[in-house]
């Protein structure tokens, strides 16, 4: 559910980074925070454990300039990827306008990716969304590491919907902005259509 404020002429959209534990969701937001013009971003909030695992969410607000006289604001959230935080993930998905699914390319994480994708679909359905229609972008992260699955394998496992997909290495920032730009585009196109019902 996007929120359009005609009196302050603002469009607000919510984008959630989803994916298995340690796949690099928080790292994506940290890179965006670091590289974004300070005027275009607010404070980043991380509700994390002492070992820097996301406990509830990370939050990063962006304002990207105007279209047709409307200021566009995007609220980026990450979910906690660890399996047992499922209740929190469901809460964070509420009101989402678009999802980035961040996959961990390492061969050892193949199952974790699949489980997390299935978990995303279940949780979206539970919130009343159609998981086949919500704006979605895939990111295959950690491409810099050895022992990663091939793109073809990842595509076959995770990209049933054939949505835009990007290779990334979030620690160095490769692919991070391409992914963000892609999801923002899908969200705005969806908004133009009047949102999903």
């Amino acid at each position, binding site marked *: 559910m996007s*929120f359009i404020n005609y009196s302050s002429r603002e469009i607000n959209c919510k984008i959630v980074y989803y994916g298995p534990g340690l796949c690099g969701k928080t790292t994506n937001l940290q890179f965006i925070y670091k590289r974004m013009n300070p005027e275009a971003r607010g404070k980043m909030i991380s509700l994390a454990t002492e070992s820097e695992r996301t406990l509830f969410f990370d939050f990063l607000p962006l304002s990207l300039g105007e279209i047709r006289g409307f200021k566009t604001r995007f609220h980026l959230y990450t979910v906690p990827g660890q399996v047992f935080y499922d209740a929190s993930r469901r809460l964070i998905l509420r009101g989402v306008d678009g999802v980035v699914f961040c996959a961990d390319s390492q061969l050892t994480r193949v199952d974790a990716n699949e489980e997390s994708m299935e978990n995303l679909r279940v949780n979206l359905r539970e919130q009343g969304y159609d998981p086949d229609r919500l704006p979605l972008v895939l990111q295959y992260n950690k491409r810099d590491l050895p022992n990663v699955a091939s793109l073809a394998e990842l595509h076959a496992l995770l990209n049933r919907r054939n949505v835009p997909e990007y290779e990334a290495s979030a620690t160095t920032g490769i692919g991070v902005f391409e992914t963000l730009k892609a999801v923002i585009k899908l969200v705005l196109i969806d908004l133009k259509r009047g949102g999903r019902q």
Partner: protein
Amino acid sequence: MSQGNLILREPEYEAFLSILRKLLADASAKVVFLVDKNGTLLASVGDAVGFDTTSLASLAAGNIAATGGLANLIGEKEFSILFHEGERDNMHLSVVAERLILVVVFDRRSSVGLVRLRVRQATARLAAVMAVAVAASDAEQGGVEELTEADIESLFK
């Protein structure tokens, strides 16, 4: 969550503001915020300078969502009122019309009892305005219909 987009127009926005201003005065509060459950700030009155209102809105929504999750676990629908007591300032959060969160920050010039009473009065009026806003939004789906691909592309220049 199959609700459409919420579109807030000038008259409803002004109506929200005037209710918040009255609440601010009647409750002797420092600041009053109205936030949607997704964490977007709709309106604020009072001395909001020095507050990071964007972060505040997002955390208030997270707070309501988390306690709502707790409520479900014990068979409650949600905890519709939360009260946080600090050394100097206190915060009262309450759910309005199912989709909004009213946040009142106050210090010892006021009291929980007074805030609670005034919030109750304001809630009914806010809910009435929200009903109008929702009806207007539903009639108006696809609020930014003139948006083109070129417009979207221009954001990334």
